[in-house]
């Protein structure tokens, strides 16, 4: 259940909001293996993802943020609870219409940027002309036009992430999941990529769920932010920011911007200390 | 493996494989007949009897002597040369393709040359064995020295270590795992080279016994000696592999693991 949902601004009539995905009582437990005890990685988690919103998940290391994404995407099966996407259950199989950008570099080193981006289209049965159109658009949108014939090994980390985002974009996903996609990048690049992500969101009208450990970033980009506790991760609160849809990094200049970040940190400070004590790395 | 080498579980798979190999051996015997492949039991009995005979010991000693000398040269010389080649970039660059080419080439073609240069007898065997073993040791050592993480060296300088301390506390532990892998492979190859060297180079040693058995069509002895050498080689390799794994325990795991 959403605990203590705080509203910093009115978001509109809740009854009219369409639910795109729903998690109900989801937990994920890793069974005991040689040398480890059972690991209760996530949950129980319940929340609704509203259609078209930008939702961020923040939380301390190891709290299960990535597990949450895996379960939502159908990459992992929950140990308990249900996952629904567009009204249909999700269980261990990735549904149509979901795109994921991972934290690690997932570009295929043996393909050019162009071929990387076009990767998913072959299977989707999209014809050659439409395929070319979509690839062209994605490559242009992500600023990769000068590099379309290059190989990922020749590009920087940030560029490779753009390739992965472009590859997701061409599939025209209705739900885009991003797992700390800017983790390896420097702050300035992160801010720019954040702006690009917002552009992408508005352009595609997709629902976006972003996992990040950067509170400012979550604040800036999101309509709502889910704050997770230390492992096993549960939502302590879901904070509504109420920012206008048409936003970019200059949002940080607003007077009430800092208040949201402070609120997030007030939840997370204690949790982060607990997570530090837990000692194990997130991966 | 949990529990390390001393648990029963760690021995389960190798024992199963040994059993299946013996079973395979028996099957081959059934198919090919006694004049081609003698059965496991009589062969092992023959081996046991052979080892007990007084005239066997001198041969065993001869081979062991040759092997140990070759090993000393291959490992000692190999590490020394490898350190030099790894430490001095240009020398390493010049030498590496030559070494790699030598590694990939049938060294048995050089055997007659060795015989001509060293004459028949112990020196030829040792030389041939050392030739086989030294190359992987050099290559692995060179690689280990080259790839020492620069950050370790910087940390050493920041801690104001003397060159000797840096060598002992930083360089040796950092390069040891990979050097040891080279030594392990060098061990097997030195054994191979020494045995090959013994085939034609002398009137003593296990290789000579093997050659005699081949000439006499004495299948039982051929198999006995082959099995003896193999058991030794496998046992030694397994022990070295365990040490190798132990040395590598701190290293980051490779990209993915099937889950």
């Amino acid at each position: 259940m959403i605990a203590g949902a705080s509203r910093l601004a009115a978001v509109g009539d809740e009854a009219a909001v369409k639910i795109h995905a729903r998690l109900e009582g989801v937990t994920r437990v890793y069974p005991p293996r040689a040398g480890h005890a059972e690991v209760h990685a996530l949950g129980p988690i319940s929340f609704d993802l509203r259609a078209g919103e930008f939702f961020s998940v923040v939380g301390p290391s190891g709290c299960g943020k990535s597990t949450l994404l895996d379960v939502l995407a159908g990459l992992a099966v929950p140990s308990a609870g249900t996952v629904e996407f567009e009204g249909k259950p999700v269980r261990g199989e990735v549904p149509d219409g979901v795109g994921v950008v991972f934290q690690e570099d997932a570009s295929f080193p043996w393909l050019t940027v162009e071929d990387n981006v076009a990767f998913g289209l072959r299977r989707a049965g999209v014809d050659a002309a439409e395929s070319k159109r979509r690839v062209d658009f994605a490559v242009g949108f992500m600023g990769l036009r000068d590099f379309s014939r290059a190989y990922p090994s020749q590009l920087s980390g940030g560029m490779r992430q753009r390739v992965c985002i472009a590859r997701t974009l061409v599939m025209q996903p209705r739900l885009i999941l991003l797992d700390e996609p800017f983790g390896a990048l420097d702050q300035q690049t992160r801010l720019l990529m954040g702006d690009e992500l917002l552009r992408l969101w508005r352009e595609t009208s997709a629902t976006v769920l972003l996992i990040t450990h950067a509170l400012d970033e979550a604040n800036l980009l999101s309509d709502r932010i889910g704050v997770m506790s230390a492992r096993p991760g549960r939502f302590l609160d879901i904070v509504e920011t109420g920012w206008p849809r048409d936003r970019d990094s200059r949002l940080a200049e607003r007077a009430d911007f800092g208040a949201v970040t402070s609120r997030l940190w007030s939840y997370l400070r204690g949790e982060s200390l607990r997570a530090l004590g837990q000692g194990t790395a997130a991966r | 493996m949990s529990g390390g080498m001393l648990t029963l579980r760690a021995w389960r798979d190798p024992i199963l494989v040994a059993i299946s190999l013996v079973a395979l051996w028996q099957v081959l015997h059934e198919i090919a007949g006694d004049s081609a492949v003698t059965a496991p039991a009589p062969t092992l009995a023959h081996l046991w009897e052979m080892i007990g005979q007084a005239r066997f010991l001198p041969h065993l000693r001869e081979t062991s002597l040759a092997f140990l000398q070759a090993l000393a040269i291959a490992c000692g010389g190999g590490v020394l040369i490898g350190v030099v080649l790894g430490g001095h970039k240009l020398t390493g660059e010049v030498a590496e393709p030559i070494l790699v080419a030598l590694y990939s080439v049938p060294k048995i073609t050089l055997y007659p040359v060795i015989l001509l240069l060293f004459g028949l007898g112990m020196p030829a065997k040792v030389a041939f064995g050392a030739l086989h073993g030294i190359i992987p040791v050099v290559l692995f050592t060179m690689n280990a020295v080259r790839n020492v993480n620069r950050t370790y060296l910087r940390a050493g300088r920041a801690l104001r270590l003397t060159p000797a301390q840096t060598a002992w506390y930083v360089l040796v532990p950092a390069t040891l795992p990979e050097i040891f892998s080279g030594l392990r492979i060098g061990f097997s190859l030195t054994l191979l080279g020494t045995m090959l060297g013994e085939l034609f180079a002398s009137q003593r040693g296990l290789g000579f016994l093997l050659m005699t058995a081949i000439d006499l069509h004495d299948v039982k002895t051929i198999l006995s000696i082959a099995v003896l050498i193999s058991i030794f080689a496998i046992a030694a390799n397994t022990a070295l592999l365990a040490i190798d794994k132990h040395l590598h325990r701190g290293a980051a795991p490779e990209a993915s693991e099937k889950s």
Partner: protein
Amino acid sequence: MSKAGWIRTVLLVGAVGALELACRTGAIAPTMVTAPSKMVTTLIETLQSDEIGMHLRHTLSAVAIAMSIAIVGGFVIGFVLNWVPLLRRAFSPFLAAYYAIPHFAFYPLLIVIFGLGPVPLIVLATLFAMVAMILATMAGLDRVPRVLLKTARIHRLSLIEEIWRVRLPAAAPHILSGLKLAVAYSFIGVIAGEFILSTSGIGHEIAFAYDNFDNPRMYALILFVLGIVTLFNMAVFAWERRMLRRRGA
């Protein structure tokens, strides 16, 4: 050519030159080493003679067959072992110790089983080379980054598509290195076998020349074998480099 390349060339030429000089002046007796120039002239003579063609064919065809079976078979077996963990666990200790065993010691047995002729030679070389390919294939498939497999699932690829379009390309560098080893080991297996026990082939011819104190011919053939094998290995190496160049480190 790079600086190292130049130095290397100079060193090699210098070494050959020094050897030539030593042989000409008699510092090294001809009963030990034949002069390099004589090696080359004898080689040319030998290559022009008739019977060498037969030996060459014998050796090279054995190598070709052993190589092909080792590469293809090794790849398939490696793939299967990677796929079925039970089989892998069963064979893994055997594979780990495989190259410690002196294979040639079992060669006489192969002859006894298969008779004289090319078969035992090919079997020996194939067995020798195959495991390198198996190990490399397994290692390559192990090292496919997890995130690429996840990407395949996100794109909802079928199993076949995932193997063909993601796993195999990702594992290719390792598999190619296994291929290189399989090539080298095929040569080593065949020639060592011919040396030890055979009635024809280049390896046999070298041993024969040695037994008959025909140093010039022996050295000529040794030079020939080393040359051919090195050239072949270099070609494979260059091909591998070209295939993987675009991927970067």
